[in-house]
């Protein structure tokens, strides 16, 4: 009993905040120069120009499209954009920074962040507050031989240098690692919906976490590569801090590094050593005014957001809340669902298939929708045929799964569907004939009382174990009996 109480107490006092860096991968060019923002799979140091290499004399110019993208995200999160967009220089020496400073935004020293405030809702309904968002440039990528500590050299690839990054900082509103993971998943979904980023691309969405227990010291964890790792790193850190606290050791305020291979966090630097970044306004970029008109324009271009979509699915399409939630927050599933509805009007059937069959299959096989040879058109056609041809649900599921897994292609599935219906029709005829033959007494009764048809119905359904369409059986029975008694 006592132990349980302690556990609940500490759970309640865990505070987790996240700092997410997301590349605006859908932009055509880098944040401050004309180089492509598609740097992946390119020869090292080929996606560069004098500007992103910081060559003497070059000047940055802002990619206006990036401003629109950032505004989209900020409006979708209900974050208030600042009226003036100001850039600052964050000065520090590091080989991944061509200029030895990063152009970013700053909320002190006369600066303002890109936007302030905002919320993202978790499935539980809990709101995670956004503190601020900033637009900044990505540094280059450093390759080490082995690990950062043991490597004899570092290789620098500047292809990534200057890519537009959106930094999203939350309040410490998450009270367990699961919530942190869900926040990231929801944020990812949102960024995909807005078509500003492809967070699944390697390194496109990166995350630092900060955590404090029982209102204690704040520890930052860096170098977390995926959402799963966030959960793991936070769980480790909670265990580590709890162990320290239980031994009466004070948790140090520090920055720790998540060592994915060893599954532990290791100390990077303590607070005292933290650098002074000497922020000051970037003199080469002029402040940009964000006016109401711009914001209005962007609101008009915003797609329907997951939260709203979920409600519509339940209210207007009659989906269950579970189905609606799963589909509305996953961009790929949502697209398949919406596209299928363009070809057929069977939302419940399609919805159920997507979640209970397709998603279940994907999860089982650890695949994504892109791996399947399945499109909205096929799915819709199958749904329509299944309404037209009377086949058992069991058989239908079997066929759907064969289609999903690629065992049968769409044409084969359709053929089977037609054949199956014929087989079934023969079967029904056979049962109907035998029931009529073996119940001559009832046949006589029918002449006087038409309601005796129900008796035949019962018999047929009993034999077929209810697998066939009752309406059809009724029509067939009536037709046959009338013929006999004529």
């Amino acid at each position: 009993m006592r132990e349980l109480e302690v556990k609940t107490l500490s759970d309640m006092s865990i505070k987790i905040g996240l700092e997410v860096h997301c590349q605006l991968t859908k932009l055509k060019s880098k944040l401050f120069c004309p180089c492509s923002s598609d740097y992946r799979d390119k020869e090292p140091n080929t996606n560069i120009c004098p500007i992103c290499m910081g060559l003497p004399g070059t000047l940055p110019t802002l990619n206006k499209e990036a401003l629109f993208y950032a505004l989209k995200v900020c409006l979708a999160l209900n974050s208030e954009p600042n009226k003036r967009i100001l850039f600052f220089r964050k000065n520090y020496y590091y080989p991944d920074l061509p200029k030895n400073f990063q152009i970013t935004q700053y909320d002190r020293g006369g600066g303002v962040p890109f936007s302030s405030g905002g919320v993202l809702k978790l499935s539980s309904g809990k709101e995670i507050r956004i503190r601020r968002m900033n637009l900044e440039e990505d540094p280059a990528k450093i390759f080490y031989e082995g690990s950062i500590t043991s490597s004899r050299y570092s290789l620098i690839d500047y292809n990534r240098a200057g890519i537009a990054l959106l930094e999203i900082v939350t309040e410490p509103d998450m009270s367990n690692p699961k919530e942190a993971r869900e926040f990231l998943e929801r944020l990812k979904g949102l960024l995909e919906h807005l078509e500003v980023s492809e967070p699944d691309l390697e390194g496109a969405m990166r995350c630092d976490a900060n955590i404090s227990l029982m209102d204690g010291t704040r520890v930052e964890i860096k170098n977390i590569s995926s959402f799963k790792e966030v959960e793991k790193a936070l769980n480790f850190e909670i265990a580590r801090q709890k162990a320290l606290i239980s031994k009466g050791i004070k948790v140090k305020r520090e920055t720790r590094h998540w060592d994915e291979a060893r599954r532990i966090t290791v100390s990077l630097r303590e607070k005292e050593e933290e650098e002074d970044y000497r922020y000051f306004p970037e003199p080469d970029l002029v402040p940009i005014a964000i006016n109401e008109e711009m914001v209005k324009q962007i609101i008009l271009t915003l797609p329907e957001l997951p939260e709203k979509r979920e409600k519509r699915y339940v209210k207007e399409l009659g989906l269950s809340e579970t189905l609606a939630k799963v589909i509305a927050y996953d961009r790929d599933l949502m697209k398949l669902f919406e596209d299928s509805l363009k070809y057929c009007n069977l939302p419940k059937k399609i919805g159920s298939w997507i979640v209970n069959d397709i998603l279940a299959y994907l999860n089982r096989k650890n695949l994504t929708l892109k791996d399947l040879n399945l499109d909205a058109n096929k799915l819709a056609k199958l749904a329509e045929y299944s309404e037209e041809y009377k086949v058992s649900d069991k058989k239908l599921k079997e066929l759907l799964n064969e289609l999903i897994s690629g065992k049968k292609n769409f044409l084969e599935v359709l053929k089977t569907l037609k054949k199956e219906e014929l087989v079934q029709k023969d079967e029904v005829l056979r049962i109907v004939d035998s029931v009529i033959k073996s119940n001559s007494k009832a046949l006589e009764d029918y002449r006087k009382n038409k309601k005796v048809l129900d008796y035949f119905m019962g018999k047929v359904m009993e034999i077929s174990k209810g697998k066939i369409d009752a309406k059809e059986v009724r029509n067939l029975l009536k037709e046959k009996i009338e013929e006999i008694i004529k």
Partner: protein
Amino acid sequence: MKKLYHLPYHELRRKIFDKEIKVKDYAQEILERIKERKDINAFITINEGILEEANLIDNKIKEGEKVGRLAGALIAIKDNICTKGIRTTCASKMLSNYIPPYDATVIERIKIEDALILGKTNMDEFAMGSTTELSYFGPTKNPLDKERVAGGSSGGSGAAVADHQAPLALGADTGGSVRCPASFCGIFGLKPTYGLVSRYGLISYANSLEQIGPMAKSLKDLSLLLSCISGKDERDSTTLPLKDFNFSFEKKGKIAKRVAIIKELVEEGLQRGVRERFYSALEILKDMGIKISELSLKILEYAIPCYYIIAMAEASSNLARYDGLRYGLKLKEGMENFSLYISKIRGEGFGDEVKRRIILGTFILSAGYYEQFYIKAQAIRKIIRKEFDRIFKEYDLIISPTMPSIAYKLGEKSKDPLEMYLGDIETVSANLAGIPALSLPCGYSSNMPVGLQLMGKPLSEGLLLSTAQEFERIRGENFE
């Protein structure tokens, strides 16, 4: 006999177009002049391809092809303006081997007008200085007195034009770097309105203050060069949205009517000879029918500290990129530790004045001092801007001497940085306020030229030039 190199460009241009002379012959003559006058040390690098390029222009003219406004002009370029394929050093050991892969916007623009890059001129390292003594390549000497400095930081450009080693030059002015050598060498130099000329390709010292500016032997040449380099550039967000500048001298422009002199700029610290020249210049202005009033602008007491705080802060960040990893000076050893390597590179590659300004700038931006220095300096800058705005509501121009003295003796100021900084008192305000300022010769003191400075409201270059032209006419003394 007057040699070709004595001529201002607009006269040469006529001869070139009349096929009286060949650009190649002219270039040959200029190259010989530079060789003869090597002791002036105006150039760091000469464009090796100049004769071939001259030949191309000659052919164009021979074939009757249309040529640009600067056809055959050999232009000396300050060595902090990037020239594709031609070494650009900033007069620093750090960049002593650096060859830019691109042209600055101003270089593109003069090339379109068929100008030729003559070479790259000496300067104070990274433009930090007022004498051109602080160069890795040695000091530039004043062509009028080799015991004296040419001024700085665009001293090589100033000396080259004054010494007839180039008809035209580009300099860059952060706190007086075009006007000071113009004044010390007796030529014309203009710092344009901030945003009139693109800085793309100008190696940054203090971004919010500096502008590339023309230097010439005549106002006509100066305005032609200015017209060719001005206007909006998509690659520099701080350029103003203006197109097609033409500061033409064909028509007589409007001249100033009301002029202000600022007590704080003309009372203390002026050399006697400079003061005398200045006051006789005022007499000429009065002869031109200009009304002159004296005002006081107390805030200018803070102009120099304000200027140096902003300049050093920006410089400390701008110069951070020189770490010996990607270009410039390299060391063969010590690569195993990034921090030690860049400390060593920066220790070896930068001169003392550059280090001093980086250290001070770093200090100024540090936590706790930023508010005390940087934010305050920006507040003073705002006030200075406002005060100038106010003055220009009533007056067309503000005039002052360009420099408080004639050219210093070599070594006179460069040993004491503070003294050197104080010499910028007349010039820094224009950079802080972003307004245009022109330096023109207004006589001699101890056989050395004295410069007169005209400042006007933003984009009043036309008024500055036509007023200066009228001043020249009345003075009845042509520089040549």
